[in-house]
């Protein structure tokens, strides 16, 4: 337990330091004292305050929330699928969520201007709900499939399903735009910069609910790691547990898709980072560590994207791929947790 507390404190300190860095440095460099003054509202410069509080802070908060949600959802999914390479992105849930949004937008576009204006008015919640439907449908399919095929096959199928959904999304949004509805710009790439301050509650609220569900399912999910029969013999109602864990995953992940797009790799890696800290697979201690670890990864990616490059920003998923893909390769090839799967 002390181990979890110390590791969490370390990760939290790193997260705060990185957040301060991201708020301070960028196309316009500030000093740390200027940033802190702007955050506390004691600064005199209006422009600095605007940059820190209205441009950078929402992005930093979005990255922390989304990264944390993906990390925790990753822990749940790896336990639910008993698959160390499962996560919302790798099993196609994020792409499924995008497809759900695209379907909704297209339907509204063809239904006429009234539907479009309705959708625009409630853009935050309606897009989250549409994403949730897509995420849930994909998750149900993958869960059914997960009982038939091995871990690696499931990973490949998930990635392929993701490509399919992303292709369909792109085509649908193209026709939706032609039909006159440009509600959603689309996300070929992931980004935390597009989150409006007004949308932050819509991002945070479902994630908090998901966090609550994750905590409730943590104990029985630990039993499920030993297999369904053992879980039953330990008093777990496996059917109920599956639904709860699935619901938790959906509400954690759907707002991330809706507002930040398909953020890759974080959900897959964060649980492994957390397990390295705890030296155990028990779910409860993993939750804070995977949440903080995911937030840290997301913020690190964002910091690189928004470093003061000349005249442009980099793509978030490009950075996450460069950082994340080698880690996944290392996990697949060398991790003792993968033994028996290779």
């Amino acid at each position: 337990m002390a181990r979890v507390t110390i590791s969490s404190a370390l990760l939290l300190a790193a997260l705060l330091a990185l957040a301060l860095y991201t708020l301070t440095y960028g196309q316009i460099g500030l000093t740390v004292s200027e940033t802190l003054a702007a955050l506390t509202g004691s600064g005199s410069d209006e422009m600095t305050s605007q940059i820190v509080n209205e441009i950078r802070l929402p992005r930093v908060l979005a990255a922390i929330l989304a990264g944390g949600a993906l990390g925790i959802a990753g822990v749940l999914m790896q336990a639910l699928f008993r698959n160390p390479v499962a996560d919302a992105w790798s099993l196609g849930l994020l792409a499924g969520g995008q497809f759900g949004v695209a379907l909704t937008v297209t339907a509204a576009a063809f239904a006429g201007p009234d539907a479009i204006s309705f959708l625009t008015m409630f853009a935050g919640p309606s897009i989250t709900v549409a994403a949730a439907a897509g995420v849930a449908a994909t998750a149900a399919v993958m869960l059914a499939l997960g009982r038939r095929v091995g871990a690696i096959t499931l990973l490949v199928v998930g990635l392929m399903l993701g490509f399919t959904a992303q292709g369909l999304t792109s085509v649908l949004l193209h026709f939706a735009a032609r039909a006159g509805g440009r509600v959603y710009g689309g996300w070929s790439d992931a980004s935390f910069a597009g989150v409006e301050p007004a949308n932050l509650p819509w991002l945070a609220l479902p994630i908090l609910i998901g966090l609550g569900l994750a905590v409730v399912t943590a104990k029985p999910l630990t039993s499920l790691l030993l297999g369904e029969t053992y879980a039953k013999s330990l008093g777990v109602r496996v059917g109920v547990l599956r639904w709860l864990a699935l619901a938790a995953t959906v509400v954690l992940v759907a707002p991330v898709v809706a507002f930040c797009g398909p953020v890759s790799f974080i959900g897959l890696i964060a649980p492994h980072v957390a397990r390295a800290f705890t030296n155990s697979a028990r779910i409860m201690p993993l939750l804070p560590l995977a949440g903080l670890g995911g937030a840290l990864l997301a913020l690190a990616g964002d910091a690189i994207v928004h470093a003061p490059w000349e005249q442009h920003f980099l793509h978030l998923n490009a950075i996450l791929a460069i950082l994340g893909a080698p880690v996944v390769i290392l996990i697949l090839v060398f991790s003792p947790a993968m033994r028996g799967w290779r």
Partner: protein
Amino acid sequence: MLALVDLSVGYAGARGAVVANVALEAAPGDFICILGRNGAGKSTLMRTVAGLQPPLGGTARLDGEDIATMRPATRARRIAVVLIERQFSPGLKVEDVVSLGRQPFTSWQGHLTPEDRAIADDALSQAGADAFRGRFFDDLSDGERQRVLIARAIAQTARVMILDEITAFLDLPGRVEVMSLLRRHARAQGACVLLSSHDLDLSLELADRICLLDGAGGLATGSAGDLIAAGRIGAAFDTKEVAFSPIRRRFELVREEAG
């Protein structure tokens, strides 16, 4: 303590009952071996007694309470299970597996108290699995894994322990060791241990009582001596090639008589 009353087990539909209308009374401290040929219904009977599948008829009772309708959380405190099925459990450490045995007793958060940890530690030593600490469960050999699972069941401090063909992966000294440790556990804790096995001679040697599934849905219960004397073992296992010799207490090849 454990009572099977007119119990029929099996599956709905064409397969139907595998074991029908059997009865058994087991007392605290009993070490009972369940024998029978492949397909005689050992696993189905064990799963039903463990409450993992509903009976087709009759009841299995623990201290007078019907196991099939017991609340899952209550049942988990009273019945521990070890199965032969091989599951991959990525990331689980040996300590994680053993402490899962404490899961039915922990708070909703699953937090382990120092007492829980002490029980788990003790269970690891009892099962001779001390040396596997710190390793990944999936990294262990089949035999080592069985020991850890037995430690987990011991940590569950259940009144009834049900073990399905767990000795299959162990070598002979390992089997003797595991079976005697289970017998000691039954004696020391006043638990009732039910073990299904293909190890006929060892079971006949070590069990307090034998439950013999005849393959036709019947169950004969008694001491090894009684069952052998009544010719039940031979009736259940003999084929054209092998026959049980009551005198030597083991199977022998049937000689093709030349004339």
